[in-house]
């Protein structure tokens, strides 16, 4: 079946290429091209490994994927599993199940790319990794496998014009804990554990009231400014603190949407930008450097 799918893909692809090539080459004789290609034919299995130039140096991991792995490692060590989810979502998973009904003013927090597919504004590129929370909770309810302790890294999209601090495609990591007797203090403690583990022992965290439709109580969490180590500098507007992400206790409306009894279970979620983390750690003035793929930048990491 997968073969059939691929077969169809390949066939369509071939047609497109033929067309594209004929357009591009301004009508170069198909025959001449065929002859040229035939003369160029290679039996790939004739490859002799020792005759191929060996790589004398290692390549470089992209800073974002390195950062993602490092974050995953910290969370794995804290007992979290890692979950993935699709990049294309429906309105239900990205918004409604997260207690954000259509036209809710809070939707203004996420400028959304919609796909030209099906009914208008039903299929979208996820604006955050939070829909993975919904998938995890639904699956756990169906499989009767609560609790959940997971982090969800992944690529997200927002319809924002890219600038030094924002990209239209970016990476987030989000954590979800659903268990018995999980408290707000657990949330604050978990965030502190992560902060010192990842950023270093002299970097701490604090919470500030905020609003997210899917958590209540909600908080922004700030960490000691990684530049001035809390002394106060321009980056942190002399406060000694910089904002990292959002967090909160799972809103009972979200639990209801996925069929979890909030009298029995409680939980928290938190999330922040992986790219932003990398930007802070390496003091990258313009985040667009991450998508330029200039090897002079890539090979620094």
């Amino acid at each position: 079946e997968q073969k059939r799918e691929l077969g169809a893909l390949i066939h369509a692809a071939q047609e497109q290429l033929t067309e594209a090539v004929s357009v591009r080459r301004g009508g170069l004789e198909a025959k001449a091209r065929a002859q040229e290609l035939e003369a160029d034919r290679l039996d790939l299995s004739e490859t002799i490994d020792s005759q191929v130039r060996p790589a004398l140096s290692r390549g470089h991991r992209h800073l974002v994927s390195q950062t993602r792995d490092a974050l995953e490692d910290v969370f794995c060590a804290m007992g979290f599993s890692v979950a993935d989810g699709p990049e294309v979502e429906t309105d239900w998973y990205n918004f409604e199940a997260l207690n954000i009904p259509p036209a809710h003013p809070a939707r203004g927090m996420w400028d959304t790319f919609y796909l030209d597919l099906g009914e208008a504004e039903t299929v979208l590129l996820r604006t955050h990794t939070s829909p993975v929370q919904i998938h995890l909770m639904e699956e756990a309810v169906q499989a009767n496998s609560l609790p959940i302790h997971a982090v969800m890294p992944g690529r997200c999209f927002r319809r924002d014009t890219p600038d030094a601090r924002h990209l239209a495609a970016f990476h987030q990591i989000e954590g979800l804990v659903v268990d018995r007797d999980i408290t707000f203090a657990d949330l604050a403690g978990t965030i502190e554990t992560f902060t010192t583990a990842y950023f270093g022992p002299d970097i701490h965290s604090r919470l500030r009231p905020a609003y997210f439709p899917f958590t209540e109580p909600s908080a922004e969490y700030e960490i000691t400014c990684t530049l001035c180590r809390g002394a106060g500098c321009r980056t942190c507007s002399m406060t000694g603190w910089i904002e990292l992400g959002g967090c909160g206790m799972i809103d009972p409306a979200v639990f209801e949407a996925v069929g979890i009894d909030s009298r029995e279970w409680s939980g928290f979620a938190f999330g922040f930008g992986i790219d932003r983390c990398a930007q802070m750690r390496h003091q990258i003035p313009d985040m667009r450097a991450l998508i330029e793929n200039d090897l002079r930048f890539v090979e620094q990491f």
Partner: protein
Amino acid sequence: MKISLSWLNELAPFGDDVAALTDTLDDLGLLVEGIERSGEGLEAVIVARVDKISAIEGADRVREVSVFDGEGQLTIVCGAMNFSVGDLVPLAPVGAVLPGGFEITKRKMRGVESNGMLCAAGELGLEDSADGLMVLNSIDGASPGASFSQSLGIIPDVIFDITVEGNRPDAWSVHGVARDLAARMGLALTLPIAQTQLPTPKADGASAKIEAADLCGRLCVAKLEGIVVGPSPTWIQRRLSASGMRPINNVVDASNLVMLEMGQPTHPYDLAGVDGGGIVVRRAKAGEVLTTLDGVSRTLGLARPGVGTGEDDLVITAASGSVLGVAGIMGGASSEIAASSTSVLLELAYFDAMAIAKTSKALGLRTEASARFERGCDPRIIEAALCRFVDLVKLSCPSASLSSDLVILEGETSEPAKIEISLAAMNRFLGTQLDAAGVATLLEPRLFSCQVDGDTLSVLAPSSRSDIRPMPFGVADLYEEIARTAGYRAMARSYPSWSEPGGLSIQQQLRRSLREICVGLGCSEVWTPSILPDKLVDLAGIVGPALKIANPLSSDESTLRTGMLAGMLQVAQRNLERQRSDVALFELGTVFVHPANMSEPRLARTAGGSASNTVLPGEQERLSLLFAREGDDAKTAVVAWRTLEASLGLEPLVMTPVVAEELPLGCHPTRCAKLTSASGALLGFVGEIDPALIDASGIALVGERRRIGWLDIHVDLLADVGQIPRRPLEAKPISRFPSAAFDLAFVVPNKVLASTLEAALVQAAAGPLESIRLFDVFRGGQLGDDERSLAFELRLSSIEKTLSDADLGEVRAACIAAAESLGASLRN
């Protein structure tokens, strides 16, 4: 929302420690996004009189001005042209430091020495209303030498720019912010005392009608006679300006100030412009068109994607039926307060928050009023807001009087939430140790009322807190309010643990291995766009019908990628352009498949996990490697593949040349092979990029041949060990007896693949075969054009004995026979 410190200090003695106040506001969730200081740095600025203006030879942009500063004459070079002899203007003398830290020094311009600067409003950090210098002729007390700020009554002030979160409808007002801050700081709040007594309102009347009681919860219509439209008192104008609103006239300013102070939007109409002397709130008719104050024609009552049916759009009409405006958002021009207005009809309403939010979003029209309505106004503040409005109008218009024809209609409003919580459960959930009195101390100054019964605390939310939901969800809202007011920073922390281990799934571990292997192959990781620009789609094509973004950021960037080739080619091209000769790249990421290309499209699930009819694109995880270094070609990609295969411990896959209909987009038709497992699963492709595509991409390669190696793998399939089996875990014993090797060179027709021959040799030598290695490929010489020589080294051993010559000879003979059966012949 902008709030000045002087305004706050009028309501409670907050003091002037801006840093501490900012910190407290932040900790209350009233995030201070910015702090502006106004009226500071003006101590040295004085009033001066212009006595003489003369041209400077050769300069047409500046003039020489002689001013009297109260003591003597000063010469100043000035670029403004909006003043004349006798005007009073602000003078910053030499040594003055203006707002923003600009220090005035003696300067020579165009040969003339300038002894100070005559100032425009903007240069003094004041509202920049007009071009040119401030002219102070009409200011009482302004005389040459007088202090500028004293003459104008300017007091240094600090303006906080506060972000009000979506669940704080109470904080969309100065009073709300002051209440929260005063409660935290333990200060008493002093709000303005109403002077106006309201007549007993009627519950019906010709002046008001609600035709959509579900969306208009309350409607108050008041009429004021004896209105003389004019400017507001200076303090009102200054407050509005400080909050970012333009002063207009005393009626409109009073309405705006009430909104800023109390959070209740009101709408004043010129009564003469309200046909029939009354207003009606009703749903808009489908397709109803009206022109709002901003001159834009707007269509209401229509369904719009993502914003619902449009049937909750509300309009305000005159009693006669003519439409006056979009309810809660913006009025129309016909009934605007004009200089000639003598009677005012004031509308104070409570609208359903979601209805206003939907209409506002549908129209793309957000106003100060709609921002407050859509968060949920206080339905019970209407009477107080009306009193305050009348009080404010009377300050500049003592003849104004409130008509006894006051109507307040009741539609549907929800009652403030009543929440019951267990103190023990709350303390457990929050990690706090608060008793009932402690909670009451937090909540009561914020207008919640609390009742204690043992462990149970019953709390009634104030009407200003529509964000507090009823039971059971309201418990979480109340927990948040208690935590917020107690202060998140003061909360305890605990460190939960659980018995389940953390870790990575098979596919996640595989991803990491793949990245490590690719880096080991000398490739660097890139991140190319998921949403492709048209030029890349045109260049490299996409598979199948395009998956398009309906609302792209720019119209030429709207197609989801179906593969990584286009993006990676672009990266290669850019880096080669920068004279990098070592371009070897990889990317691991998601590509998309149009549902039309899937035999079983992915169906979205809705609430409760049930399937819906919404079809979703397929998503595949792909690993692509691109080799564009000097000497790289399909063989580089083959070695990369073999390394991956061996490093991951895969059972060897079969590499077969692709036929035309299998060829992936952009690949070289005669230098590309597919990789399939024994079960027939197609894992990916290895080979080269089509030279036509390389030409088109503008890539300038080093060396003679235009070759780029390419390897493309389906990672989801690779993670499926059922489809792509791994070698057994058991270790194979190593022979302790010496191994023996012999070489075999065959002349093989081109149409027989080296791998086919190799497979035949492996089969023929099965058992004693330890390894087989192709070590030479030779063309030309005595050989025909359609054949080549392939030389293999076979190494044999036995776990039981040293192989004899006879044993070797037997295997050799079997190998030769197998090769011959393929049309190959032993080369001499």
